[in-house]
């Protein structure tokens, strides 16, 4: 179906490269009006609408693959293009990512039921005393996209909150972020609290954030460090593989 949604048609005009236009248009046109509305709602960050539309689409019998491709990913593709071309900025991307999550909340159980298991489970928070979360949220977006279940603990997360969340959610990974040099040491303090509770070996610990370095992560006793969202996902996968291998052996 050609693009009939007026708002989506306007958004699509921001995609100017021919190859990108062809790829995104193919995905959009494979869907119907409901998928177009879903894509538009995702672009504009309306997570309530994405939630309802995804539920409706699946309830009406559409395949999860179609909803993912034609509704959610086609919308996110336009978000990516607009961000790259400086038409929107990080907050808008994160709002779209929140809408993506609302849609994926309905897709994930279907994937699980069909044997597509998540790679692993993580709890992820900005450490105590630190209110910065843009980097954390980008990492969470990437982690979820890669197939992890990630429980977002928000900002100013105290060690006991990490401990409680890791236990409650059966986490494999405890992931900590900080932007301030003054709050970075709280990553180490959090790990120490896990040690004091006798829980150090239950989880793998990852650290990241603008001032954090591999050396600092090593000093803090972390198992992994990511200097950007992509390496964060790669490292998380590596740590999960180590954990799985250890438990299998």
């Amino acid at each position, binding site marked *: 179906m050609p693009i009939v949604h007026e708002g989506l048609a306007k958004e699509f005009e921001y995609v100017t490269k021919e190859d990108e236009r062809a790829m995104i248009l193919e995905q959009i046109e494979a869907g119907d009006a409901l998928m177009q509305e879903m894509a538009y709602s995702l672009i504009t960050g309306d997570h309530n609408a994405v939630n309802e539309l995804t539920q409706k689409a699946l*309830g009406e019998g559409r395949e999860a693959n179609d909803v993912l491709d034609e509704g959610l990913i086609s919308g996110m593709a336009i978000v*990516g293009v607009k961000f790259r071309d400086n038409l929107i900025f990080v907050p808008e991307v994160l709002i779209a990512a*929140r809408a993506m999550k609302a849609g994926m909340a*309905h897709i994930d159980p*279907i994937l699980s039921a069909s044997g597509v298991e998540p790679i692993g489970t993580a709890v992820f928070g900005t450490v105590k005393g630190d209110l910065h979360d843009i980097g954390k949220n*980008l990492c969470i977006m990437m982690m979820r996209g*890669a197939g992890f279940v990630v429980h977002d603990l928000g900002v100013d997360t105290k060690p006991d909150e990490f401990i409680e969340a890791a236990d409650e959610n059966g986490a494999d990974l405890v992931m900590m972020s900080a932007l301030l040099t003054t709050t970075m040491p709280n990553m180490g303090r959090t790990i120490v609290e896990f040690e004091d509770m006798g829980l150090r070996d239950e989880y793998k610990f990852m650290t990241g954030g603008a001032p954090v370095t591999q050396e600092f992560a090593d000093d803090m006793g972390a198992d992994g460090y990511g200097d950007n969202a992509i390496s964060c996902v790669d490292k998380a996968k590596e740590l999960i593989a180590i954990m799985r291998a250890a438990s299998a052996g």
Partner: protein
Amino acid sequence: MADSPDNLPSNNQANQDDNASAKKVDPGRLRDSMSRLMDIYSDISNTAATPGQTRCPYKDAKSRCTAKFPCRNQFFKVVGEKAICTGSDDIDYRSAWES
């Protein structure tokens, strides 16, 4: 997103009827979809990381330092006012931070 993080419907809260579509999932196509999504996210991540590699997050629009900790790039021209950032955007600013 985010100070109050996971306030959206969780997977468990998602309508159980969604599972009716379970049989229809094509794993091969799903892999392709997730790969495409990761490509989109990777591009976003790279775009977001680029300015952060050259511009200190504590430097405001007028090149004044907003950090609450010492940095070797701080120059206090007027006592009581914010320091001027003397850092070069050509080098990694993080090595100048003093925690």
